[in-house]
């Protein structure tokens, strides 16, 4: 049982944006600012730098070590405030950080990762120097952009509060009316694949923002019950820890057929991570590898699927039902089937996301990316005349607020986040989540010692800050497109343009 050090931050308090500093003393930054021994502690640099790289703490004789993570690097060379120019003894040098070169990959570039960290710390997009909107994967979202009408207005994100980013989750005539103030919620990450601390952090953040997070398929830890109004109970093929009361306490129940990172394969928890606590939650034997079967062995047709939905409704008549599917070629048919089975939310999970262990071969090669699936389903549902009765949520590779906006413009109503939230709490995408004791940063681990590295309140603050930064960016996009509400962006492919591939990614791509 985890006890929080203090009461979970109050909603308003979290939104008030407390800084969520990085947990460790050293940052991984794009630039490295060095001050050598020649420094005479004159403090000129601290005066000129507008970003706060150099600083003399109140009453200190020496300047603090430079905060390289705030430096905008090369872009500063032409500025008047360039500290290197001002230093009377030429003690400052700025170079590219070799560390940054080994961080990230074409999809999650080092700059996207670092920018997410900045957002989690400050609640704002990085000011300059980090590309925070687009990656370098050479396709999909990375080759889509918005075509903004020319405007002289400056968009101050803080003044755009009039722009509506809320999303109703129930489009049908009957059932509970739930509205979330931001068009995204957290995707399923099971207890076992992530630590309880992370689940708590996500649940606290979801509560603060009045949105949702999902239990994933590993059961519903008691610690989450205080946040139950914002926790989705996932019913997955393994049925781990699915019990009547867990279905009954949820406002939103998610039936998971497949997941993007391993479409058609079912979940997989390696034996090492199946600790006694996890095993108890999942009602299994500790130390064994746990496979969720694929698929549901009670579902062989759309009719069977309907029975599943009815079964959930029988237990919990007021709950909204979401169905999580991955993206085969007939995903449009699947979505229509889901609609007729009576679900409220169709959740498409594309292959490029995923946070747990997955065979590498399944990450890229099975089922289509979300960028193709969303327009396909959106158009098909429109043709069938049922588009406005279901909510279409997209996940699997939504990295930034800009990806989210593009997914919505392609036809989704909103998006579901996974990896981005983990990066907010310090994930470096090293991919060691499943080996031995699990994540060295204490994120995707069940190791009792490692998981202590993430205090839930801190994690919640980081996630909340990122949400805030995303909301600001989304509002800015909407404002620049002259839209008042995110609901008006849906399916507006006319606002998108395809940009030519800026950097060919064939050739040598180090994918760490």
């Amino acid at each position, binding site marked *: 049982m985890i006890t929080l050090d203090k009461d979970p931050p109050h909603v308003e308090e979290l939104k008030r944006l407390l800084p969520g500093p990085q947990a460790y003393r050293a*940052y991984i930054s794009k630039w490295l600012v060095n001050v050598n021994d020649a420094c005479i502690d004159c403090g000129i640099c601290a005066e000129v730098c507008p970003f706060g790289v150099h600083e003399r703490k109140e009453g200190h004789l020496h300047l603090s070590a430079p905060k390289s993570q705030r430096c905008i690097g090369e872009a500063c060379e032409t500025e008047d405030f360039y500290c290197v120019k001002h230093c009377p003894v030429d003690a400052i040098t700025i170079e590219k950080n070799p560390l940054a070169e*080994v961080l990230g990959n074409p999809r999650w570039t080092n700059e996207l990762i670092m920018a997410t960290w900045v957002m989690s710390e400050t609640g704002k997009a990085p000011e300059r120097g980090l590309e925070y909107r687009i990656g370098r994967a050479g*396709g*999909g979202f990375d080759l*889509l952009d918005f075509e903004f009408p020319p405007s002289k207005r400056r968009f101050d994100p803080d003044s755009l509060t009039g722009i509506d980013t809320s999303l109703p989750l129930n489009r049908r005539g009957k059932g509970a009316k739930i509205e979330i103030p931001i068009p995204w919620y957290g995707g399923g990450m099971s207890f076992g694949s992530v630590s309880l601390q992370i689940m708590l952090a996500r649940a606290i953040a979801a509560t603060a923002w009045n949105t949702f997070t999902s239990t994933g398929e590993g059961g519903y830890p008691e610690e989450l019950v205080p946040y139950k109004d914002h926790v989705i109970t996932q019913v997955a093929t393994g049925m781990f820890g699915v019990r009547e009361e867990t279905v009954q306490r949820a406002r939103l129940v998610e039936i998971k057929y497949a997941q993007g990172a391993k479409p058609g394969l079912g979940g997989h928890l390696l034996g090492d991570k199946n600790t006694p606590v996890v095993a108890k939650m999942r009602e299994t034997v500790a130390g064994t590898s746990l496979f969720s079967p694929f698929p549901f062995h009670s579902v062989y047709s759309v009719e069977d699927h309907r029975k599943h939905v009815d079964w959930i409704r029988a237990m919990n008549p007021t709950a909204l039902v979401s169905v999580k599917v991955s993206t085969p070629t007939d995903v449009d048919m699947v979505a229509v089937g889901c609609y007729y089975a009576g679900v409220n939310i169709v959740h498409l999970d594309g292959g490029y*996301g*995923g946070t747990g262990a*997955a065979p*590498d071969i399944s990450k890229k090669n099975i089922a289509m990316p979300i960028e193709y699936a969303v327009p396909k389903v959106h158009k098909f549902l429109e043709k069938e005349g049922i588009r406005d009765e279901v909510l279409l949520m997209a996940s699997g590779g939504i990295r930034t607020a800009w990806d989210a906006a593009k997914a919505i413009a392609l036809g989704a109503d909103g998006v579901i986040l996974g990896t981005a939230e983990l990066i907010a709490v310090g994930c470096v995408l090293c991919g060691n989540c499943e080996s031995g004791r699990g994540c060295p940063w204490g994120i995707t681990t069940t190791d009792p010692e490692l998981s202590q590295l993430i205090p839930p309140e801190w994690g919640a603050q980081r996630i909340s800050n990122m949400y805030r930064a995303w909301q600001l960016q989304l509002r800015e996009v909407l404002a620049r497109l002259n839209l008042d509400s995110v609901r008006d962006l849906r399916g507006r492919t006319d606002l998108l343009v395809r940009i030519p591939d800026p950097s060919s990614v064939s050739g040598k*791509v180090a994918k760490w």
Partner: protein
Amino acid sequence: MTFKRYHIPIAPAPSRRPWTRVNVHRDLSRCLNCGTCIDSCLYGVHDRRDADTRFMEEPEDHLCRVCFRCVAECPVNALSLEPNVEFTEAGNGLFKPEVLRTIANEAEGGRIPVTGACYRGPFGGQGFDGMWTDMSEIVRPTRDGIHGREYISTSVDVGARPTFLDFRRGGPWTPPRELPVPFVLDVANPGAPPAGILASVVKAAKALDTYAIVPARSWPAVGADLQGHVIVRLSEGETTGFEKTAGVEATYRHGGADLVGLRRSLPHSIVSLRVPVTAYDRDAVDMALEAGVDLIHYTADWKDVDSIDGVNTYIATLRDLHGYLVDRAVRDTITVLASGPIAAAEHVPKTIILGADLVGVDLALYGVMECVPPNHALHLGRFPEDFPLSDVPWGTQRVVNLMNAWRDQLLEILGAMGMREVRRLRGDMGRAIFQDEAEREAFADIKVLAPAKEVVAR
């Protein structure tokens, strides 16, 4: 007859020169020798010196998993990670550094590579990268996902499945041979392999119950007990003396090669026609059909598939070959073996979807033997210092492990599609999503910006 489940005997065969992705650099002028990094690293990269525990030992870079934790926790910023140029510069267009590392890992333990966190590579691309395989969401009752995969068959047939009796072989019909895996090991391209590699590959072919294709020059070195697992690639003019082999392979030349004679002289062996992508034309197919050979071995030299254009041509040609056979309504009378650009497990199902019955593994075998970069060694006709390989059991095990890992990954793909046998995947292009088609459909109504524009609009 007793039923024996096909099983590949995997065992650890550790790499001798493990890939080092990054250099872990400790700035000795800053290091306090405090030992914080020893606790930070879960993988044992950092340690104190045995001889003098006051000081830190050089980091063991090859164990580093690039998690950055030691870097972040070092109290004086003394640690840094830098890309290891030897790694990032290794390989070629087909065998990129990560591909080589994956091969090495697979050869080491025979397991499916599994990692956490999301997909890290490029969005799509050309060649095989522009293809996704399908999956099925709700499946038929026969399907049992990961638990049922032992019931998925990876067997393929080599030889005709004739629709009527065929007496051209001058005797009773020889039924097609069944291979339990859709892999053939090909060391006949482009030169004769060194003895150690030859022995390892042929032994592995036996262990896997498949065939190795070896050049005629190497044939005398193959032991009597292994001859039944060898297909000999003939040089010009050779035709006799290969009765004990599983089969022979002639190389296609326009208007050349007496295939009919070869077929006659070896009625019960596999006869294969090797057709390099550069020499392919439909005449080659006609010639193979005419002579009634068992196999068309469609292949490419590494130089021809080193560029993405090369792979595109390869794929287009393979589709043509398969399509032509289908059009002539003779697809089941001949087996298509495709080799050349097969560098990773995902290429196996994709090549089969494009129309091959089975794939040939060639340069990847040199990757298994840590011959790096594989193409250079072959191109220059020489191998690194420690070759020819002397530890044949090690080499054999590495090949066996790789093939097990690839088979298991094939099972994953088949499982996801709800398919029960790989035979049915052949040429099933409806099971693939091609990037250009998918993109055309999905982004049809989105304006394309002229390339002139600056990278990304602010």
